[in-house]
């Protein structure tokens, strides 16, 4: 006998012929059930009777069952029910198990669970009669009702309660998915098919019939691996459901129905967190993200923020791949969900202090107000805030309290708390600073104990340091030093700490020369006394290093900090101090342009900060440094995420007036600006402006704050204000850091770029000439700013129509990036395209333009407003050679541009005016006119008046 041509089993073939061959599910890349047409044999069931129920209508089919509407016959009362016919072959064993399980399910009496009315086996055909539930699948219901997150979670808690009830009766659902959870029009939840999956499982023989038993997107790892399924599997599926309800997307998106793909998605890959899923959707498909957010009654970015944090953690705790890492019970899950609803801390992870503080603050004040305390919450809140100060002090590496003085200090603080009489505070607001001031006033009463008083002054000074009140720190430190002088030979260690505080306070006020002198005294003190105290010496070195760092004497700063680090490593329990020093070295390396080296230091710092008991107070600084490194490497998205994290942490740890918070905030604002998230940027910049005003022009961070504000103002077309802000920024830097401060060069470069963009090449040239010689020397020739300088000079040449010279300069940049394996900046590619186009090399121009566009799309996502300029240029260059492509691009530009112009982006409006010309040349006059109508008001605003904008306006007329 010859070998058969096809190695198929007869029952597989029968099954195939029964179910049909349309592979639409596969085709559509869902990995969902293979689809069926209406099964041929549905008709033959209608009219048949099972128990006392007659099948009257076909309703649905599941993986291995058909569902019919049925009516009771022959009884005294009318009853409608659903009858489910199980299509499994009826082996004797299965039939027996079926009867047993049915008994258990019949006792599952809960309002949230569809009841089993009857069931049995008739002529070998197992069937179940169930309560007929009218309703919509839970996810569809939530979207239709446009339920917000809180309402969704309340509904989800109902689901959990039903599941929990079944678990208490030792029944596991096994197939929790939206299709099995219906919500009736009055908002009650019913779970269907409890434990049904179990009736079909474990029989082995039926699994090869070609019908999948589980729905891959809602399968747990145990199910896919064929391992025992228990309560933990239901918790996993609840997590998948919650993810879907929160984000409108699946936590286990399955691209392909193959076994390998399913195993990978369910078993191997960590589930994407809900906030990440939202972000991904926003990047890939903005319109969809907006639909999803609308159905939850929040703007896209706020939805993301709401989900980030606790809800991410809760979903994550359901979706651990290892069953024993998940919530132990549905009750635990519900407890955390309720806690979230009530702004209490959740339990899913050991909460850190600052984390608890945020929840606490929200619960009591409805917002994150950590310094303004009201009403009955006052006393408790003080304790919480003081606790966080203490952490702040530690973080600043300013003090190690001696045990006895520590207790004296505690008593003092306790006294202070008692002072805060709740009656007195009723309705009144009392800030932390006021509390401290009260404390300072009371210090006099302790004048008989000089040592304790010195310690207290030092502690108070550190508390003020935590608040960024550097003048108070200075005053207190000087007072303590005076007190020490009166008492004979001072304790070298305490003295060095006081000098350290004083130096830091001076540095904080931007008085760098004085700070260095004081820091020098501290180091000298040790040499003088011959003291052999590694810790104190390390601290003194660090103070000096930090001061040099602030002065941007980076190489010397690194040398001192390395020495400090080496000393700290000899001292036990200096994890935090080491992290601080590592962060400073990282930042110094970054400012020298050594991004890889910087990241290396930051990662070392991060490892220390996150090891064991996390050091919240230093996290922000590390995140900030990493964000900046990634930003300079072009990874904007990652930079934005880290800056966002730094903002949250620094705000919680340091409060909304602190300059650390300001620094994190500035980064976030800057990245929002680069990603053209203008609405979010506007909010961040308002906050930056507020803080900058509060700190005043003499504050060390005032200059960089104003620099950023200037960039934002320029973007939204407030050109005069932008110019003035930049001038204030430069003035402040000169005042605080001196006329040779290198940041001034950076600000001037930015200003020249703005002049060029505004169509003022003469001003730009003047600016560039002023800095062109000194900038490379100040930053080092490898620094990215030097590339920016060269690029700007080339663009200036192009603006003066010297395109050949421009191309020479640009090609050098191109080469230097390519040979170093770095991404070529998009602005270089676009400038090359423009200049080649101007010289009539259409093909070369087009090639550069396409590269620019691809690079932009890769960086920002193809639907991002940040890609407008590149899309506009590509459309323009395509319009001769490929009108169809040009047309698509021009329409895309117009769609993307409108959104950002609506958010106030002046320069996208200018781009759109170019695009309008392209649209017109392609015969799309209506679109061009519509765009012009939109951008004209933006372009004709008096604040935007400039030659470039006038040209843009002319293009529309």
């Amino acid at each position, binding site marked *: 006998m010859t070998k058969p041509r096809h190695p*198929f089993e007869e029952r597989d073939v*029968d099954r195939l012929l029964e179910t049909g061959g349309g592979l639409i*599910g596969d085709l559509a890349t869902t990995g969902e*059930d293979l689809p069926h*047409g209406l099964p041929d044999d549905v008709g033959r069931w209608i009219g048949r009777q099972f128990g006392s129920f007659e099948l009257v209508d076909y309703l649905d089919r599941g993986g291995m069952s058909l569902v019919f509407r049925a009516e009771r016959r022959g009884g005294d009362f009318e009853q409608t029910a659903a009858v489910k016919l199980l299509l499994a072959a009826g082996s004797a064993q299965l039939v027996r198990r079926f009867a047993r399980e049915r008994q258990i399910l019949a006792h599952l009496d809960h309002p949230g669970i569809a009841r089993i009315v009857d069931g049995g086996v008739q002529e070998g055909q197992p069937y179940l009669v169930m309560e007929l539930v009218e309703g919509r699948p839970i996810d569809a219901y939530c*979207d239709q009702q446009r339920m917000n997150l809180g309402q969704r979670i309340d509904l989800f808690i109902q689901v959990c309660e039903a599941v929990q009830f079944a678990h208490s009766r030792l029944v596991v659902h096994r197939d929790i998915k939206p299709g099995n959870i219906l919500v009736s029009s009055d908002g009650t939840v019913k779970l269907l098919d409890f434990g049904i999956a179990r009736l079909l499982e474990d029989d082995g023989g039926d*699994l090869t019939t070609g019908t999948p038993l589980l729905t891959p997107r809602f399968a747990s790892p145990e199910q896919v691996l064929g391992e025992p399924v228990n309560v933990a599997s239901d918790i996993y599926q609840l997590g998948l459901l919650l993810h879907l309800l929160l984000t409108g997307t699946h936590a286990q998106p399955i691209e392909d129905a*193959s076994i390998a793909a399913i195993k990978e998605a369910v078993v191997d890959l960590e589930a994407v967190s809900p906030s990440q899923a939202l972000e991904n959707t926003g990047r890939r498909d903005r319109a969809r993200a907006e639909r999803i957010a609308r159905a939850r009654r929040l703007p896209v970015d706020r939805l993301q923020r709401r989900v980030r944090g606790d809800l991410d953690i809760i979903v994550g705790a359901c979706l651990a791949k290892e069953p024993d890492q998940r919530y132990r019970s549905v009750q635990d899950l519900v407890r955390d969900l309720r806690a979230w609803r009530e702004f209490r801390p959740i339990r899913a992870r050991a909460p850190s202090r600052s984390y608890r503080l945020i929840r606490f603050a929200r619960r009591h004040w409805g917002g994150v107000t950590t310094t303004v305390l009201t009403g009955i919450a006052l006393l408790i809140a003080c304790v919480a805030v003081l606790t966080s100060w203490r952490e702040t002090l530690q973080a600043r590496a300013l003090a190690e309290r001696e045990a006895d003085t520590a207790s004296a200090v505690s008593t003092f603080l306790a006294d202070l708390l008692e002072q805060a009489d709740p009656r007195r505070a009723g309705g009144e607001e009392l800030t932390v600073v006021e509390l401290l001031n009260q404390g300072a006033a009371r210090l006099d009463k302790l004048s008989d104990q000089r040592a304790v008083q010195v310690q207290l002054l030092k502690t108070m000074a550190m508390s003020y340091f935590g608040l960024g009140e550097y003048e108070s720190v200075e005053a207190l430190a000087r007072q303590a030093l005076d007190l020490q002088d009166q008492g004979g030979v001072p304790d070298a260690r305490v003295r060095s700490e006081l000098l350290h505080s004083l130096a830091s306070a001076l540095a904080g006020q931007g008085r760098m020369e004085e700070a260095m002198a004081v820091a020098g005294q501290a180091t000298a003190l040790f040499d003088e006394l011959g003291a052999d105290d590694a810790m104190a010496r390390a601290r003194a070195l660090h103070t000096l290093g930090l001061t040099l760092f602030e002065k941007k004497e980076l190489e010397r700063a690194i040398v001192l900090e390395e020495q400090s680090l080496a000393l700290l490593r000899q001292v036990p329990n200096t994890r935090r101090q080491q992290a601080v020093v590592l962060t400073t070295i990282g930042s110094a390396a970054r400012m020298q342009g050594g991004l890889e080296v910087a990241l290396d230091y930051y990662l070392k710092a991060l490892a220390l900060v996150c090891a064991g008991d996390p050091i919240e107070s230093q996290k922000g600084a590390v995140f900030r440094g990493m964000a900046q490194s990634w930003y300079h490497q072009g990874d904007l998205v990652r930079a934005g995420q880290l800056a966002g994290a730094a903002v949250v942490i620094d705000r919680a740890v340091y409060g909304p007036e602190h300059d650390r918070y300001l620094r994190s905030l500035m980064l976030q604002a800057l990245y929002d600006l680069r990603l053209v998230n203008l609405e979010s940027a506007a909010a961040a910049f308002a906050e930056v402006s507020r803080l900058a005003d509060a700190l005043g022009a003499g504050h060390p961070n005032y200059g960089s704050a104003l620099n950023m504000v200037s960039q934002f103002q320029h973007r939204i077309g407030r050109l005069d204000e932008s110019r003035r802000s930049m001038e204030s920024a430069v003035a402040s830097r000169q005042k605080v850091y001196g006329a040779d401060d290198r940041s001034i060069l950076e600000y001037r470069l930015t200003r020249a770029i703005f002049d060029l963009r505004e169509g003022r090449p003469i001003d730009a040239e003047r600016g560039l000439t002023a800095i062109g010689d000194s900038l490379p020397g100040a930053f080092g020739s490898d620094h990215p700013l030097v590339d920016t300088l060269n690029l700007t000079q080339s663009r200036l040449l192009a603006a003066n129509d010297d395109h050949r010279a421009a191309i020479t300069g640009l090609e050098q940049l191109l080469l230097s990036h390519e040979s170093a394996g770095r991404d070529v900046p998009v602005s270089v590619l676009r400038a090359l395209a423009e200049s080649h186009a101007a010289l009539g090399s259409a093909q070369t121009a087009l090639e550069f333009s396409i590269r620019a566009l691809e690079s932009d799309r890769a960086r920002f996502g193809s639907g991002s407003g940040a890609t407008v300029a590149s899309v506009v240029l590509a459309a323009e260059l395509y319009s001769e050679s490929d009108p169809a492509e040009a047309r698509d691009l021009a329409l895309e530009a117009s769609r993307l541009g409108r959104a950002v112009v609506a958010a106030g982006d002046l320069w996208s409006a200018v781009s759109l005016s170019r695009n309008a010309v392209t649209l017109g040349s392609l015969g799309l006059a209506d679109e061009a006119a519509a765009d012009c109508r939109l951008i004209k008001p933006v372009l004709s605003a008096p604040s935007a008046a400039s030659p470039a904008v006038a040209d843009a306006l002319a293009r529309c007329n």
Partner: protein
Amino acid sequence: MSEVSETVNVTALLNRSRQDPEARERVFRIIYLDLVRLARRQVGAASRDQTLSATSLINEAYLKLQERTGHQWNDRHHFLRVAARAMRQITIDTIRRKKRAKRGGDQVDLPLDDARVAGPRKSEMILALEEGLCELAETEPRWVEVIEMRFFAGLSGQETADALEVSLSSVNRDWSQARAWMKSFLLE
């Protein structure tokens, strides 16, 4: 391509397609793409685990075509024949693409109970069937059409009869013979 010109083209194409093989081919491509797009979109929009049926997809494609031609073209029977063929083609193309994408054909034929998920063996059977159908078209073209409509497009017996403009009993006869042929061919 603007909507207007497309409408004109499609209507003209559809009217020509009964006689003109080139027009027929282009109509086929249009319907093929419509079906694929509709399927993708349905899945993209599907927030729950709904089952996509070939039949509902075809109905939707028909409505879309009606919309596009401004309801000038009402030959549903003709449409169903084309759509069924398109569905067969889509199915085959999909399986082949997936197979190619996997590299190394071994993986495709994992035993089904390995992860309790269907697919590979079904795909293999359909692919095998496709070879047979090409031969069958020479001798029994009617069977092939019935298989396309009932097996690939999931149409009912009556719909198939209407589309082919023959009696239901004749379709049923063809279908049972075609099924018998499919079964014996696959077990050969």
